[in-house]
């Protein structure tokens, strides 16, 4: 599914495309296994208990549960791109909790998914997304979208929070 769109600025090594499917790439500490997303740009492990110095790329789970979401009704300031001769189009943001990694990753929601259809606890999957730069150039990013079908979706928020391992109970 590689379509030759270059990675957005600053995101080299943040995701993979190709025959194994689109996935976000974390940095994994080679000593303790701690995951960082985005991958760290400085050496060392984020866990102060670990003296590991190296990290290797590790694909993250491609699905998770929707921890929260919001949308942007007003145009953000630069550096958010504003392609020439275009109107601002509102977009939604998702915070998705990856079950295995126990990590919450933000991303824009795919533009064809209305914010009104989102619900905390939904199963979301990562997909390739496209930003258009202020110069009008397409750039690859990641998007979140509701997974089909919604296997195991809890319709009860309390049940969801009980199962999500939320520390701020």
């Amino acid at each position, binding site marked *: 599914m590689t379509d030759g769109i270059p990675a957005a600025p600053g995101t080299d090594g943040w995701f993979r495309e190709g025959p194994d499917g689109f996935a976000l790439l974390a940095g994994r500490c080679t000593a303790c296994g701690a995951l960082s997303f985005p991958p760290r740009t400085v050496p060392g492990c984020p866990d102060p208990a670990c003296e590991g110095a190296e990290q290797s790329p590790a694909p993250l789970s491609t699905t998770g549960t929707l*921890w929260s979401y919001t949308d942007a009704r007003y145009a953000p300031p630069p550096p958010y791109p504003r392609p020439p001769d275009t109107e601002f189009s509102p977009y939604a943001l998702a915070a998705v909790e990856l079950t295995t990694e126990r990590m919450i990753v933000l991303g824009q929601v795919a533009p064809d998914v209305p914010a009104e259809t989102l619900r905390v606890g939904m199963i979301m999957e990562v997909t390739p997304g496209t930003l258009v730069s202020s110069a009008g150039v397409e750039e690859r990013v990641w998007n979140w979208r509701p997974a089909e079908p919604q296997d195991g979706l809890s319709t009860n*928020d309390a049940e969801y929070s009980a199962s999500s391992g939320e520390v701020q109970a």
Partner: protein
Amino acid sequence: MSRSDSVAVAGVGMHPWGAWGKPFVEYGMVAARAALADAGLGWRDVQLVVGGETIRNGYPGFVAGSALSQALGWHGAPVASCYAACATGAQAMATARAHILAGLADVVLVVGADTTPKGFFAPVGGDRPDDPDWLRFRLLGATNPAYFGLYARRRMALRGSTEADFAAVKVKNARAGSLNPNARFRAEVDAETVLNSPMVSDPLRLLQICATSDGGAAVVLTSEEYARRLNKDAVRIRAIAAPTPTYPRTVPDFPYLASDSMATAVPAARSFRESLAHTAYEAAGLAPEDVDVAEVYDLTTAMELDWYEEIGLCAPGEAEKLLHEGATALGGRVPVNPSGGLSSFGEAIPAQAIAQVCELTWQLRGDAGARQVHGARVGVAVNQGLFGHGSAIVVGRA
């Protein structure tokens, strides 16, 4: 730390918040002169100036202590300038306090002032793909209100909070702010107006998100002995806590694009935001039950409710109940944001934590006029900002 570790708040002063468009130094000068007059001291009595930096006003903003000293007239006192996002003022006061407790200075002037552009805060200029603050805008368009929207929606899902609950916070704070001559927004609002204001980041509407403002605040901190000689020793800073988060962070706090993974490490029992006030309470030898009045960083109405729980005013999930009982309104059991809060002020970043201490000082001295919390003896101020910054300050009557 014991009570002998306290320093005195000998004087406080502010320049009213607004959208004045003047140089930030002018707001700082007005606030500094007011605080010195309140303390009964002159500018040349100051032995150290600590300036809270502003990152949106060029070089003078980065050397705020110097810019202010030059404006008030050089007299040789050393300066320090610091930046800690929303906790800048707290870090500045912590620096002052440390100098006093170490015996390096008796009289320290702490000033924060800002001139703020209208609209969303944006990252500082230039293409910096290794800066999380740049990346979140460039890749996601994730403004501060977008993060606030995520946290507010999360609260609704976890706690069953409603938009009406959030609106009630605004109604409460606008009422308090209407009584505060230093507040920018002084009109009372009703819930219907809040709920009909434009949606910015679902579920947060314009009147539920704090504005960006100009303003300036200053405090004169002194040693206890010096304050006694001045007869200005009524209010003491009992603790300033500014811990950083511990790994792993459990929430995607701004400006980061993800939380830390909890797969390989166990989070602390307290969240970062919970740790702020509780660290300060422990340092002051106090408990949440001792708090008479609180100033909390209500970047949004929803966030004020989070703070009630995180600073221990009520159990998790009980914030809406506390609000609707009127406990946190003026006249209630433990008024929160009697100043009107950020809701009524808007945010002038380096001044805001100092302004919180100004309000608590007026409250503890009985000088808060129409918004007085009667008999207040212990106050707490908390805030949280970008890049792992946050603080809590406990202030008490001598």
